[in-house]
């Protein structure tokens, strides 16, 4: 009955749940700073919630260490669908400087389908904001299409020019409207 | 003349309660209980006394003049009260035996599993 409003609202009120998979806390304070008055993610509906049951978007930060791997996966499993998984910072994507250490279990994408990667060793709050907004739209997309693997074209991907040598020119201006 | 009886019964009741309160032994509590009971029995009997009255039993042909009877009702009450006193003592002694068997002591200060 409220199918359309539900899909629309899914995009408009994404609740975040932050999972620290062994991070150096650089990304953690950046994620929280997104909710402070200067960047105020709440004005587009973001809210940090305490339990994965309430969450829509899981923000994972830190190289997934051997100790935190089972816990991260269990928490991600407990998030009800439709859900998005966002990795903040380059650690979850590749293990960054800790890549070959004995206690790092490698990128998160080895275990779970990651929807949005926000690169940067401590990405800028605006970058996190972009990532989360994109995740919110993916969330709405998943709700609309019903399949969990749905994804949207990435407005921030660098333009693929034909010939190799030409240096990548300035990327297209971003059109991410909220 | 009755006042002495009343004082005595009052004294017995107070003595009974005193033993229950101060003695830390279960058997002494039972003794205190029965002393208080006897005090009350004495009170009941002494209330029914009518000076110069005889035992309230009708025998054939003897009621010539209107001789006084002692009030029969308190006596009946005393009978029941004595019976009740006996039952109380019997039951409390059986309980005391079971308590001694399971707690191993008769001291009220140790028998306090249910408190607080």
């Amino acid at each position, binding site marked *: 009955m409220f199918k359309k409003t*539900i899909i629309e609202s899914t995009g408009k009120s994404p609740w975040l749940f932050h999972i620290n998979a062994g991070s150096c806390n650089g990304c953690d304070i950046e994620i929280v700073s997104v909710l402070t008055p200067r960047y105020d993610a709440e*004005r587009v509906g973001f809210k940090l919630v*305490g*339990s994965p049951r309430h969450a*829509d978007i899981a923000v994972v930060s830190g190289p997934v260490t051997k100790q935190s791997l089972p816990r991260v996966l269990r928490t991600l499993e407990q998030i009800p669908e439709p859900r998005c998984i966002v990795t903040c910072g380059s650690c979850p994507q590749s293990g960054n400087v800790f890549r070959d250490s004995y206690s790092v279990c490698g990128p998160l994408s080895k275990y779970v389908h990651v929807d949005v990667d926000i690169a940067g060793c401590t990405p800028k709050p605006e970058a996190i904001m972009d990532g989360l907004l994109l995740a919110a739209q993916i969330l709405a997309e998943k709700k609309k299409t019903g399949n969990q693997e749905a994804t949207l074209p990435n407005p921030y991907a660098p333009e693929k020019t034909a010939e190799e040598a030409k240096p990548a020119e300035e990327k297209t201006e971003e059109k991410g409207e909220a | 003349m009755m006042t002495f009886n009343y004082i005595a019964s009052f004294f017995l009741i107070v003595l009974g309660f005193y033993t229950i309160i101060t003695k830390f032994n279960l058997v002494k509590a039972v003794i205190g209980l029965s002393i208080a009971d006897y005090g009350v029995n004495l009170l009941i009997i002494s209330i029914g006394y009518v000076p110069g009255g005889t035992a309230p039993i009708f025998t054939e042909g003897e009621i010539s003049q209107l001789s006084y009877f002692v009030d029969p009702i308190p006596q009946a009450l005393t009978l029941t009260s004595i019976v009740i006193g006996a039952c109380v003592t019997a039951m409390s002694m059986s309980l005391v035996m079971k308590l001694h068997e399971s707690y191993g002591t008769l001291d009220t200060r140790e028998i306090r599993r249910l408190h607080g």
Partner: protein
Amino acid sequence: MSVILNALVDLGYILIFPGFLFCFLCGMLLCGIERKIVARMQKRVGPPILQPLYDFFKLCGKETIVPTVANKTVYLAAPIVGLAALVVIQLFIPVFNFTAFAGNADIIVVLYLLLIPALAEIFGAAATGSPFAGVGLSREMVTIISCELPLVLVFLAVGKAVGNAIGSGVVFSLQTIAAYQAENGCLLFKASMIPAAIAFLLTIPGETGMHPFDAAEAETEICEGMLAEYSGKPLAVYKLSHAVKLLTLTSLFVALFLGGLGTGILLVDGLITFFFCVVVIICVVALIDASTARLKIEQLFKYYWTVVSGLAAISLILAWFGL
């Protein structure tokens, strides 16, 4: 024929005006305004006013995961019972001398009906069996105990003040209170009622579990406390009942203390009440929410049973000596 008409009108009351639809929309709106004002007080832009509506519909769309350990029937039934009780209270509260079901609109009934939503949340949390929910429900129960004393004192004070004026000893029925206020001005201006009004205002955040008194669902310490295991539609209903509870308490405040300002036309009265509710929310609830840190549970209890109850007791004594 008139019976059917009456039934229809009653159903209309239940469904439309003071009933479900009014509660749903106004509750959400009130909650949205409150969040926006709190954000503005923190120099933030704050979410759009309709944000609670978006939250509600999003939660409706989410999957409901019932933990295997939980008791399924209580888990699903509890939020709905809480919501229903709240809507019933809303029906009893007079809107400037109009009450949908006047039969027994009595303060004590309202006092006890206010217990049911809190109980619904408690038994919902108990049904899940999660330790976070256990700690949450223990804190919620202490919050209920601490809010009960001031509420009782306030209601007795109001009953006594109106009873004195009418001369019929004591008045517990909300309707006579509304009628009294219709004639000689709202109760707030009586000397004895001001501390009671303040006490009642301080109880609203405690009763609804707003920021400084939300030890029961502290998302940082005990992961959303009682609602730790709720997701999807039951959680949506709980969030809705939080919003409606805010509306119920503020409209109860308006009915008790700002009585006489109604015009008589139902719709206009409704708007006026809602306006007063918003004003109350802005200047009291949001202000307390934005400017304080979360209290520990025993500080909350001590605060309610000393400061707020003291205020209410003062007004009771004043009302008693006929002020």
